[in-house]
């Protein structure tokens, strides 16, 4: 799909440039004429939304760095100054802080979309792995960024996460001291986290470039999961998907704006409005909402090292997913049994997030005393997160390989066009068979 170029230089300058740096040819082939399956639905608009969010975070971040002071005595006050005194600082800081949440919201939808339509399968494994790398970099960037305002949750979150590395046998403590640059999370730590927080988004941008490159070699997957067989199955990216993405971005920006303008602190933690105090730990240490499921997995096991291994294993599992899935059918549209396991998996991730937000010993159903099972009450979040963590791993390591071998899938359509043409809506409109050939 990336082979033949249809670009025709329009004037002398374009011809001159085309033989020296074929930049316009590249732009034309990737965002204008790029053949895209004609049946992509709105779940496919989140790639565009994510590109916008990355740009938004980089631009607002560079501006914030002009006013922020990475020093333990001044960091907290400098953020408050940005919010109160810097011209439009309240807006730019609000866009950046809430932008992180919106970025993760979009990436999670993008990933669940991918799981549903089997887009990680051959020949898109590299595309998927690059996406996992981007996700890991995003987690790192979000963690470093959350430390910078130097509130109570910033500080103690950093303490807890860096102490996780201390769980590694023998070298753990040396690595922790090396990360801290001292004997505790302190000024040296804040400075290097600021430096890395500035660096990582540009690394993300680089991997995004590879991600799009890896997308444009095999081309988009689509909701049916069947391969593109002819030009009948595709439409040019522009104007069909530039417009569709544009509409989706507009709707997404409305949600983003609701948070920025009306609920700027709804996704944050009140404890982060108290300046960091190394001598007092807040009553409840919780990460931001987008990391809660992994935090629940970490706390599900009583052993510190095992918890850390499981938490990182939950993300590492994603990298090998293309080789765990044995099914030849990509889209879950044609896998009626697997689809149920998928929806349970989705709910399970939300349950894990719910567990991560509660203290382990809290009761799941208030008022029911429950029984003691092993080291904890069966009605406590400890046991709920253990069950949910078990399902998380079982979904990838047991259900996905087994279902591919045992399930009888429904018949896939012969081509992308077949279900479009047989759809009731298509009959009414007089069959949208070749939209690319119209006006």
């Amino acid at each position, binding site marked *: 799909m990336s082979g033949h170029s249809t670009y025709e230089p329009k004037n002398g300058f374009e011809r001159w440039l085309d033989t020296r740096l074929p930049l316009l040819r590249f732009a034309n082939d990737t965002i204008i004429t790029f053949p895209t399956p004609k049946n992509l639905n709105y779940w496919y608009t989140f790639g565009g939304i994510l590109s916008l969010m990355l740009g938004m975070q980089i631009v607002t971040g560079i501006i914030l760095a002009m006013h922020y002071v990475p020093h333990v005595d001044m960091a907290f006050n400098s953020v408050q100054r940005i919010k109160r005194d810097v011209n439009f600082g309240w807006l730019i800081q609000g866009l950046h802080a809430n932008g992180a949440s919106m970025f993760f919201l979009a990436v999670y939808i993008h990933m669940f979309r991918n799981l549903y339509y089997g887009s990680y399968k051959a020949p898109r494994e590299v595309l998927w792995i690059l996406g996992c790398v981007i996700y890991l970099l995003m987690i790192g960037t979000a963690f470093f960024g959350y430390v910078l305002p130097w509130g109570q949750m910033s500080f103690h979150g950093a303490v807890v996460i860096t102490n996780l590395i201390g769980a590694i046998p023998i070298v753990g403590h040396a690595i922790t001291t090396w990360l801290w640059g001292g*004997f505790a*999370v302190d000024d040296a730590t804040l400075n290097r986290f600021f430096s890395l927080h500035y660096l990582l988004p540009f690394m993300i941008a680089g991997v995004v470039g590879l991600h799009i490159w890896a997308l444009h070699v095999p081309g988009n997957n689509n909701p049916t999961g069947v391969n593109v067989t002819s030009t009948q199955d595709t439409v040019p990216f522009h104007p069909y998907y530039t417009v569709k993405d544009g509409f989706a971005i507009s709707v997404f920006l409305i949600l983003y704006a609701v948070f920025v303008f009306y609920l700027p602190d709804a996704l944050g933690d009140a404890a982060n409005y108290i300046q960091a105090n190394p001598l007092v730990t807040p009553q409840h240490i919780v990460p931001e909402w987008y990391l809660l499921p992994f935090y629940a997995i970490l706390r599900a096991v009583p052993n*510190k090292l095992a918890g850390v291994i499981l938490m990182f294993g939950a993300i590492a599992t994603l990298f090998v997913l293309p080789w765990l899935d044995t099914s030849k059918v990509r889209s879950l549209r044609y896998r009626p049994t697997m689809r149920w396991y998928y929806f349970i998996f989705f709910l399970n991730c939300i349950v894990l997030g719910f567990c991560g937000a509660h203290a382990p010993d809290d009761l799941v159903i208030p008022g029911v005393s429950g029984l003691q099972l092993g080291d904890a009450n069966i009605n406590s979040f400890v046991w709920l997160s253990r069950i949910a963590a078990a399902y998380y791993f079982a979904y990838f390591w047991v259900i996905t390989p087994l279902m591919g071998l045992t399930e009888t899938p429904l018949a896939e359509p012969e081509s992308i066009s077949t279900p479009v043409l047989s759809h009731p809506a298509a009959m009414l409109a007089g069959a949208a068979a070749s939209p690319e050939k119209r006006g």
Partner: protein
Amino acid sequence: MADTVVGANPDPHVSGENPDRRDFIHIAAGVAAVGLVGGLAWPFIDQMNPAGDTLALASIEFDLSKVVEGQQVVVKWRGKPLFVRHRTPKEIAEAIQADHADLRDPATDESRHKPGKAQYLVLIGTCTHLGCVPTFGGGDYGGWFCPCHGSVYDTSGRIRKGPAPLNLAVPEYSFLSDTKVKVG
């Protein structure tokens, strides 16, 4: 063109024409490049370790007479909280009694204070689980309770319950006079 072109690009692996000299240059250049990168890597990594001034600030002095019996004072030492606790006779008795209990990280109460100074406990105030600061007097054993993940320490700072693997650490310290200690 049946003639062979001679001398344009001699194959280094064919004998003659000093193959050893060429190989030597390749290997020497490779080793120099690896050595340079390796030699630079260590300074680039080690710069993140605690700096000289950070290490120099590593010890403090503290007057124990400020701590009333039954109370604790929290001092900042090396960026971390330091617990200085003046224990009551009841708390000391409980701690000694627990010497023979089933401890996760076995240690006698005597090993956790200086000889003849059983009333003063000096401990690093970070939970050995994930580094939170345990609250004074909480938990089932009257020692400390960590609010983050529920670790419980007794009046000797030994781990009794919860996810933490080790007792609260005893820093290196010594008595300068009857009531003055130097930590670090």
